[in-house]
C-alpha cells in the first residue's frame, strides 16, 4: 500500500464518526440518509465524511435511482485492520503467553539447581 494512501487511511480512521460509518457498512450498503440517522449531524456533514472515506479507498459509492449508496471496500482495509484493530488485544494475549512461558522457564531453572547444587540455592 502506498504511503499516501496509508496516510489517508490513518486520517480517515482517526475520526470516531467515520469509524462508526465503517462499522455500519460492515452490515451492508447504505444511503447517506441511513448513515446520518444514528448521528446528530446533518446529511451534508455525513457526505463530507463519506468523501474522506472514499478518498482513502475505504468505501466506494454507486447510484441507485436517486440514492447514492456507500459500500465498504475490502482490499485497502485488509492490511490496515490487522495493524489497527487489536493493540490492546495483541498485548494482552502476548503477556498471557509470556506469563506461561516464564512459569515453564522458572520450573526448568529450579529443576536444574536442585539436585547436587553446591550452593543449595533455589531460584524460585
Amino acid at each position, binding site marked *: *500500500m502506498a*504511503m499516501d494512501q*496509508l496516510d489517508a*487511511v*490513518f*486520517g480517515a*480512521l*482517526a475520526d*470516531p464518526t467515520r*469509524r462508526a460509518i*465503517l*462499522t455500519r457498512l*460492515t*452490515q451492508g*450498503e447504505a444511503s447517506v440518509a441511513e448513515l446520518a440517522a444514528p448521528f446528530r449531524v446533518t446529511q451534508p456533514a455525513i457526505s463530507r465524511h463519506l468523501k474522506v472515506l472514499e478518498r482513502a479507498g475505504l468505501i*466506494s459509492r454507486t447510484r441507485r435511482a436517486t440514492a447514492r449508496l456507500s*459500500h*465498504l*471496500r*475490502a*482490499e485497502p*482495509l*485488509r*492490511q*490496515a*485492520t*490487522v*495493524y*489497527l*484493530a*487489536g*493493540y*490492546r*488485544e*495483541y*498485548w*494482552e*494475549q*502476548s*503477556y498471557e*503467553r*509470556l*506469563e*506461561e*512461558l*516464564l*512459569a515453564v*522457564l*522458572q520450573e526448568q*531453572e529450579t529443576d536444574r539447581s536442585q539436585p547436587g547444587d553446591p550452593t543449595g540455592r533455589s531460584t524460585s
Partner: protein
Amino acid sequence: MSELQVTAEPGVPQVLTSRDLDAPVALVYRAFTEPELIAQWLGPRKYTMTVDRYDLRDGGTWRYVHTDEAGNAYGFHGVFHGEPSPDGIVQTFEFEGAPGHVQLDTVTFEEHDGKTTVRTNSVFQSVQARDAMVDAGMASGMSEGFERLDELLDRQLKGRHVTDG
C-alpha cells in the same frame, strides 16, 4: 491476575503500557531478547511467529513475521538504539504494510520482590497515527465492529461479493 494498563492521553502522540509479571527481571529480559523465546510468546496465538533476525546491539536490526492460518504474512522490523540491557531497550518499530510509519519504542524492566514490572513507551509520528492505531482498536464497541469487519474482509477476499471490483 495482572492487568495490562494502557494509557493514551488525548492530543499526545504516545502510548504507555504497564504489566506486572511473576518472574525476576533476568528471566523476563531473556524472554524479551532471545529469538527462540520471543517466538513462543509475542503476538496472538492465531499467528505463527518467525523471528527472521534479532541483532541485539546498538545499531543492530530486528525483523519478525506473523503468519495467519490463511497464509497472510505480516512483517515488522526496526533498529536497536543504544546498547540493549535489562535497564531498558530502545528500538524503532515499523509495520511493513505501512512503510514510513515508524514508532519509537522504549521498554523498561523494574524488579520488586521477585516480580517484574514491564513498561513500554511508544512514540508515534503524529497524534493522528497514534489514534488510528490505538484508539481505533480500543474505542468501546469498535472491537466488535472490527471483528465483524475482519470476518467480512475474509469472506470478500476469498473472492465473492467484492463490491469494488
